[in-house]
């Protein structure tokens, strides 16, 4: 009797994660083409439109850059938590609460000059995000509560907090009774740097570069690496695991909350429950595809942003924009398959018959 098993290769196939990602992309495009064909939609026209509206011109490229910002920052936030083997599934909530904190500052000082207000709002956003992730970090460090579930639960709480504010305390008096929050101060808008791209693109790149430097060059980053790879060694070296877990979760939340602040000042006019826009979940996939490396996060975030921006444009062809979501998920499943096959091979072996 024969059966299929996964056997580890003596030498992993070369190329690694970039190849796995490209394989995932091809896998997703083929899967998407099959779906489009079955539903009678034009495959080539759809993909051409998606490409054209994401990378086709300077104007669309700049829009793709903008949308890559929250994806990259969330990807970075997830990677930061992952250095300690932790999962931050709560970026969605941290974006929302970060943007809520920024809105609070905007309401408190509506007359500050633009640059000062923007800085204050972004700091508040980071602080808000850190606060939203601090609880799960504390619970994990002190009594071992799974941060996966607590961060996930707090997403739903942050979402409902905004809906509550929308209909009560922060309701727009000029909204004709429509439940929306008053627009943020006009001067708190991030300036454009190139075509449609706003300053947030540069800020995000700086944050990613700073983190990469921090992980590789600072004492704290070095301690993190030890603590993440070998808790026992870290404890012997006098590194407090408790404080590392809390610190890393708060930092991860701060980066995600910061993304919420950038969204509020960059792309949105007002705080709403849609400001997180699924970035919190897509960013986790981005981080996983980038194997939690900052440079990889930037590249994958750009690709996902292109799929999302392109996805919005195909509705005019009569094609559902859900194609974009499907493609993003399929990339991950394709890449999983490729990554496994690069370290393992499928072999047909003879099953031993035991009497």
């Amino acid at each position, binding site marked *: 009797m024969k059966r299929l098993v*996964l*056997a*580890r290769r003596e030498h992993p196939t070369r190329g690694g994660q970039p190849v796995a990602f490209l394989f995932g992309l091809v896998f997703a495009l083929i899967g998407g083409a099959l*779906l489009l064909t079955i*539903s009678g939609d034009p495959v080539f026209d759809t993909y051409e439109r998606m490409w054209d509206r994401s990378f086709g011109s300077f104007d669309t490229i700049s829009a793709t850059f903008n949308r890559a910002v929250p994806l990259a920052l969330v990807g970075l936030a997830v990677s930061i938590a992952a250095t300690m083997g932790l*999962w931050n*599934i709560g970026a969605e909530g941290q974006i929302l609460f970060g943007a809520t904190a920024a809105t609070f500052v905007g309401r408190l000082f509506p007359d500050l000059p633009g640059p000062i207000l923007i800085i204050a709002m972004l700091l508040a956003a980071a602080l808000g995000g850190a606060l939203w992730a601090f609880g799960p970090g504390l*619970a994990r460090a002190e*009594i*071992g*509560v*799974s941060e*996966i*579930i*607590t961060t*996930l*639960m*707090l*997403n*739903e*709480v942050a*979402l*409902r*907090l905004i*809906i*509550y504010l929308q*209909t*009560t305390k922060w309701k727009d008096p000029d909204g004709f009774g429509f439940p929306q929050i008053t627009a943020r101060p006009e001067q708190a808008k991030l300036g454009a740097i190139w075509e449609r791209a706003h300053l947030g693109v540069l800020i995000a790149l700086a944050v990613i570069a700073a983190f990469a430097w921090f992980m590789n060059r600072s004492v704290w980053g070095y301690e993190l690496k030890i603590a993440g790879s070998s808790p026992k060694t870290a404890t012997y070296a006098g590194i407090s695991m408790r404080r590392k877990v809390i610190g890393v979760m708060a930092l991860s939340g701060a980066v995600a909350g910061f993304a919420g602040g950038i969204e509020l000042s960059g792309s949105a006019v007002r705080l709403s429950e849609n400001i997180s826009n*699924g970035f919190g*979940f*897509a960013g*986790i*996939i981005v981080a*996983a595809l980038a194997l939690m490396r900052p440079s990889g996060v930037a590249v994958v975030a750009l690709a996902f942003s292109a799929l999302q921006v392109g996805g919005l444009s195909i509705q005019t062809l009569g094609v*559902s924009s*859900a*194609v*974009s*979501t*499907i493609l*993003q*998920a*399929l990339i*991950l*499943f394709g890449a*999983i*398959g490729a*990554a*496994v096959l690069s370290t393992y091979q499928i072999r047909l072996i003879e099953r031993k018959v035991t009497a």
Partner: protein
Amino acid sequence: MIFAELTISETAIIGLFVATIQFATLLFLAGLGETISERAGVLNLGVEGMMAIGAVFGFIGAVESGSPWIGLLVGMIAGGLIALLHATAAVALGADQVVSGLALTMLGLGLADFIGDDYTSDPRRALFAEVDIPGLSDIRFIGDVLFSASPVTYLAIVFGIAAWFVLNRTSIGLGLRAVGQSASTADAAGHSVVGMRMGAVVVGGALAGMSGAYLSTFVVGAWSVGVTAGRGWIAVALVIFGAWRPGRVAAGALLFGFTLALQSRLQPFGVSFSPILVSMLPYLLTVAVLIVISIRARNQPSPSPAGLGIAYRREER
């Protein structure tokens, strides 16, 4: 006049509890599925996506065939099939369960949106009718709430008892729990870890799909994008709240179902408390329960399956 007011409030109370039973059924089916999957050691964060797939296929199956039963079956099969993707990635290939599950939610929501595009404003209906239990349904108040529900509610109770029995009283259940506690030990004892886990994930997916189909063939009675409205995440919370045991999951489903029902029905009671704050309760309660479980785990074994979330590869044992 006093009599008239009393009648209104009784209708409101009955309405509240009827809705509680409906939401409890919805949450229990998905929560039971997730319980089975997690007892085998596989965390599946794809519930929301599997539910959406069940909802859209359930609706299509029901209106195209004219029978909500066909819809329910189609929804279950669709949920089980999409769960197979998580089973393959996270169990057979050993990928990270968190990432694979979240990707499954994304894929499920996207696919449901895509497939359901033509059915969004479909006026056709093929809905379950309430089934009156003879004799019992005539009891005032209790009859309306407990003995005049949709057949899916009764089916969910049967499934719950069956799941409890299989998990706790059969060798298959013992094997499944062993696989979830310690995969290498179970493997050494001759259980097929991969087979058991994949099976549990697929069964879990079928139940999440059934929950979704119940949503589109009874509770809401139609398909639209976002019809699952985050209830899949409540189901994930419910499993923890219920300490991974079908009976407690059922009790939790009633409590969480009550908070869901309360949101849309506060006004008739003259309560000025914001319904949106009530809707935070299931999530906050789950966090509270997790904290209590963790504190108690210092003195007694945690109810969480020990092998939950850990991939198993035999050669790395």
